[in-house]
């Protein structure tokens, strides 16, 4: 168990693997948190609209940016893993990881600006 979380002396591929698993755990946690929060809809317009006002606060927006980063890292690395799993792009597995990570940072930054500007 301890070894699973030990990221030292790992190749880029294993860094990608661990990052994929950790972002995946975070996203599963978020999925159930999101479903629990949506239960506010059962309380009708008063309860939901009050929650929406709170969710538009900078703190919630910052959490949304972190979520977007997690989705991008997990999604883009997932596409890379799928390609590799089907035997495609084997030579490019490391550059693909770095391209995905860079793209995640760029898109997350763009998303952050778009969310805070609304």
């Amino acid at each position, binding site marked *: *168990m301890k070894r*699973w979380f030990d990221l030292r002396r790992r*190749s880029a*591929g*294993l860094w*990608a*693997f661990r990052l994929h*698993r950790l972002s*995946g*755990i975070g*996203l*599963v946690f978020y*999925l*159930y948190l999101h*479903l629990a929060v*949506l*239960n506010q*809809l*059962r309380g*009708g*317009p008063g309860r*939901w*609209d009050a929650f*929406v006002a709170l*969710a*538009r606060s900078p703190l919630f*927006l910052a959490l*949304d940016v972190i979520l*977007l980063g997690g*989705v991008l890292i997990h*999604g883009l690395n*997932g*596409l890379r*893993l*799928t390609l*590799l*799993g*089907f035997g495609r792009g*084997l030579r490019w*597995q490391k550059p693909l990881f770095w391209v995905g990570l860079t793209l995640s940072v760029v898109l997350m930054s763009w998303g952050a600006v*778009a*969310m805070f500007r*609304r």
Partner: protein
Amino acid sequence: MEQMEQIKMGSGRWGWLLQAVSGILLVVLVGLHWVAQHFLAAGGLRTYADVAAYLRQPVIFGLEAAFLIVVTTHALLGVRAILLDLGLGPRADHVLRWALALVGAATVGYGLDLTLAVIR
């Protein structure tokens, strides 16, 4: 390729294939969900009336229901892969598969019930 073999051996070939296919579908469905719910909605989030009107559209209801089913399947297959990776045996995996199927059915049932409660 060490990590690929680790993934495939951990969750089995069929489990891995379903994980990959649901993952590809999710890239599209998450993109649609995120843009529709957070970028097209005024102020970034919909009011109760807007949520109800949005979900009453049959195409949107279908897309959101598909998103719920695919994301739950992908998430629970991921949980199984991680648990198997930590050394769960075949017998425990059998129990785990049933447990995760029940959790998945409950999750989808809860989500659909909530959606129907809003659009009624």
